[in-house]
């Protein structure tokens, strides 16, 4: 079945063509290039499905397609395609959501009479191209390249409404903050090339393979600063993690994501929920064989993830705008994925990535639908009672919310539960610092389950329940099929995608239900399977599982605890906000409210770093440059001219003085050379 792989490049190429078409011909096309984008992403989706089927048949693909830069006496840089089960899954997710978002955009952008549509669809096309290319990149340099291009698209799309003040600013912030992360990523990439001479993800000559061999003493690598390989690999892993934290909006580089909500809502759905932000986590999963070698890196990943999950969830509690709540929930959910990866729950992370992509895209598109209805007012306090007026939106949104909150049997429950379960058992089982860290991360993740349930349903109740609080909410704008269709598809998926991997149910019933485990555990490329990762984690990093209540007992207990907390959160929201005339309860939080409203002053300190530290430093450098560096230059010329001014005074204009000077000079010469020559 090599046929599918032959066409694999087209998965990314099709959206690129749609980018070109939309950019240059969009003006002359109906719907401003949307149709090209829809056709292209539909094509990508079909090809991805074909590829997935092929992969399901056990085939994989790892091929260098283009030599970017040749090396004569050194390594070369290439572009290639790596397709294994993980890739196939992600391709499917990305192309599906891209397709749905394109369709949705017809309703959100075209029907709303926006201008600049060719630019919009060109941006979407370029984004889809970059993301898909990133997904099946065969080496880390290629991954970085498209990672950056994804960042560019994010910039272009967030700043789509460039005629207003806020979107360009948000776009700048998004690019800059992720660039800050990418800086570390790039250092890591360069370091990996310098260390291993290759950046390939898979294969015998790939850097995770060489790293493993080096740890076993089977291969020699160049390390720097006299570090031993283990430490150096940790350093490299953490450097790459910088990029991950930027793109996946992990603390402290998460601040751009809420601002990025300035972009059009379909963009938020596509980029800032389902795909681009997923890129970071996906990257860790992609090179998991490398991280699995370093317990320190794993611990840090888990801690960052756990902390971010809780941290973002608490901020989501007080937000008043629909998309802001979703933004913080996104940050929080990616925290879970990081937690899972750090805790050795590779499959759990991928699982949550999958489910989250579905329900978060759904929620954003639902929010988009609400925003259309509300004439682009996003404040939840101006809504209320929309469930009767837009039932399709309401029911699909509810499906997504239940998934997000982690209520059984919606998708989020299964995946989130598995994440927490993995963190728990490995936290209990692993020795030393890693175990402790994992347990702490687990605790934070668990706690945020409650907050998730609370803010999710606070959002649902404020938006859809109660009585309409404004005129717009009483007579909302209708939405068309192109909005409802993607919602319906995603609503069904959000409810059902969790069935891919029902581990607790499997353990309970003994029926084989963990299909995703199977999917990731086997494959033609052995070194990127979850089985290999499991071995590595255990043998090298020392990640060990421990079941205090037996395997079944622990599983069920963990599921029960997380479900209970989620329900508690939902219940709290119910009691506070599911009333006809809800009121604000945030004042009860006291001074904490201010802190939360200001997002723990994260933005303030980052802005301060930029305008309070860097900019004054730049001004000072400028002053130094003008004053001292250039001053020296001008000083040299001034001194010369001053010397010249003195020198010309010698010429007094009086001829007698000249005679005197000549005579004096002659006498001086006579005396001097007389002494030298010994005439006297």
């Amino acid at each position, binding site marked *: 079945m090599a046929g599918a792989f032959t066409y694999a490049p087209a998965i990314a190429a099709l959206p690129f063509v749609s980018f070109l078409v939309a950019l240059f011909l969009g003006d002359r096309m109906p719907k401003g290039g949307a149709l090209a984008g829809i056709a292209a992403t539909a094509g990508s989706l079909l090809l991805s499905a074909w590829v997935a089927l092929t992969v399901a048949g056990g085939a994989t693909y790892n091929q260098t397609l283009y030599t970017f830069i040749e090396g004569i006496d050194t390594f070369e840089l290439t572009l290639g395609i790596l397709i294994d089960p993980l890739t196939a899954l992600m391709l499917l997710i990305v192309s599906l959501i891209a397709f749905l978002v394109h369709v949705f955009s017809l309703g959100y952008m075209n029907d709303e009479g926006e201008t600049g549509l060719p630019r919009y669809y060109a941006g979407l096309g370029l984004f889809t191209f970059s993301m898909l290319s990133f997904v099946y990149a065969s080496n880390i340099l290629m991954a970085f390249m498209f990672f950056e291009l994804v960042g560019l698209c994010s910039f272009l799309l967030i700043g789509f409404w460039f005629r207003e003040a806020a979107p360009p600013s948000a776009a700048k912030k998004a690019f800059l903050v992720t660039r800050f992360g990418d800086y570390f990523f790039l250092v890591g990439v360069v370091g990996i090339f310098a260390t291993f001479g290759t950046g390939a993800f898979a294969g015998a000559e790939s850097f995770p393979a060489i790293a493993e061999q080096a740890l076993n003493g089977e291969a020699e690598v160049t390390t720097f600063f006299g570090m031993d390989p283990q430490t150096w690999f940790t350093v490299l892993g953490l450097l790459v993690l910088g990029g991950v934290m930027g793109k996946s909006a992990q603390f402290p580089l998460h601040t751009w994501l809420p601002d990025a909500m300035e972009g059009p809502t379909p963009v938020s759905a596509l980029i800032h929920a389902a795909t681009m932000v997923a890129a970071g986590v996906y990257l860790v999963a992609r090179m998991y064989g490398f991280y699995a070698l370093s317990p320190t890196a794993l611990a840090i990943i888990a801690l960052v993830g756990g902390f971010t999950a809780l941290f973002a969830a608490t901020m989501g509690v007080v937000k008043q705008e629909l998309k802001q709540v979703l933004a913080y929930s996104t940050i929080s959910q990616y925290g879970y994925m990081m937690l899972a990866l750090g805790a050795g729950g590779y499959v759990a992370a991928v699982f949550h990535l999958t489910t989250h992509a579905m329900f978060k895209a759904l929620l954003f598109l639902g929010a988009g639908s609400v925003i259309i209805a509300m004439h682009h007012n996003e404040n939840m306090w101006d809504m209320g009672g929309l469930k009767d007026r837009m039932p399709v939106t309401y029911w699909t949104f509810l499906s997504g919310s239940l998934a997000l909150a982690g209520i059984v049997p919606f998708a989020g429950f299964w995946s989130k539960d598995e994440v927490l379960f993995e963190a728990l058992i490995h936290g209990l089982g692993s020795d030393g610092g890693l175990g402790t860290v994992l347990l702490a991360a687990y605790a934070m993740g668990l706690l945020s389950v409650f907050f998730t349930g609370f803010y999710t349903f606070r959002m649902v109740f404020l938006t859809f329940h109660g009585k309409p609080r404004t005129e717009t909410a009483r007579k909302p704008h209708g939405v068309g099929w192109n909005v409802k269709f993607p919602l319906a598809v995603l609503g069904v998926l959000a409810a059902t995608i969790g069935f891919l991997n029902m581990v607790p149910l499997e353990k309970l019933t003994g029926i084989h239900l963990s299909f995703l485990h199977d999917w990731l555990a086997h494959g033609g490329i052995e070194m990127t399977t979850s089985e290999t990762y499991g071995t590595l984690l255990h043998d090298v990093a020392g990640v060990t599982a421990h079941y205090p209540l037996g395997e079944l007992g622990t599983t069920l207990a963990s599921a029960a605890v997380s479900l209970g907390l989620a329900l508690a959160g939902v219940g709290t929201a119910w009691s506070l906000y599911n009333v006809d005339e809800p009121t604000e309860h945030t004042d009860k939080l006291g001074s904490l409210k201010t802190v939360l409203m200001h997002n723990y002053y994260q933005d303030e300190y980052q802005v301060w770093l930029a305008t309070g530290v860097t900019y004054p430093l730049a001004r000072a450098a400028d002053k130094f440059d003008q004053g001292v560096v250039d001053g020296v230059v001008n000083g040299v010329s001034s001194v010369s001219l001053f010397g010249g001014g003195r020198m*010309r*005074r010698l*010429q*007094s*204009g*009086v*001829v*007698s003085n000249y*005679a*005197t000077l000549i*005579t004096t000079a002659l006498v001086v010469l006579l005396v001097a050379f007389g002494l030298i020559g010994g005439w006297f």
Partner: protein
Amino acid sequence: MMPAEYYLVLSAAVFCIGLFGILTRENALIFLMSVELMLNAANINLVAFSAQYGNLTGQVFSLFTMGLAAAEVAIGIGIILVLYRNFSDVNVTDATTMRW
């Protein structure tokens, strides 16, 4: 015959007198005379050592020097004339329109 050193001392004295005149006097004519003195100091040497060495070179050259001195004075007088015409004086320190 007197030792040659005496002539040297004499000529040096004459030369210095001339030089002194140049440095101290501001009248252009006196300036000219002083130059004549200095040239004559050279002539003293030339003639004296011509005799000393017994060749005529020095004496011939002294004749040329005298001729040139005359020519120089001729030019000098001419310049002093136009100086007087332009500056109404023959004081050499008056002409200081150009300096620095």
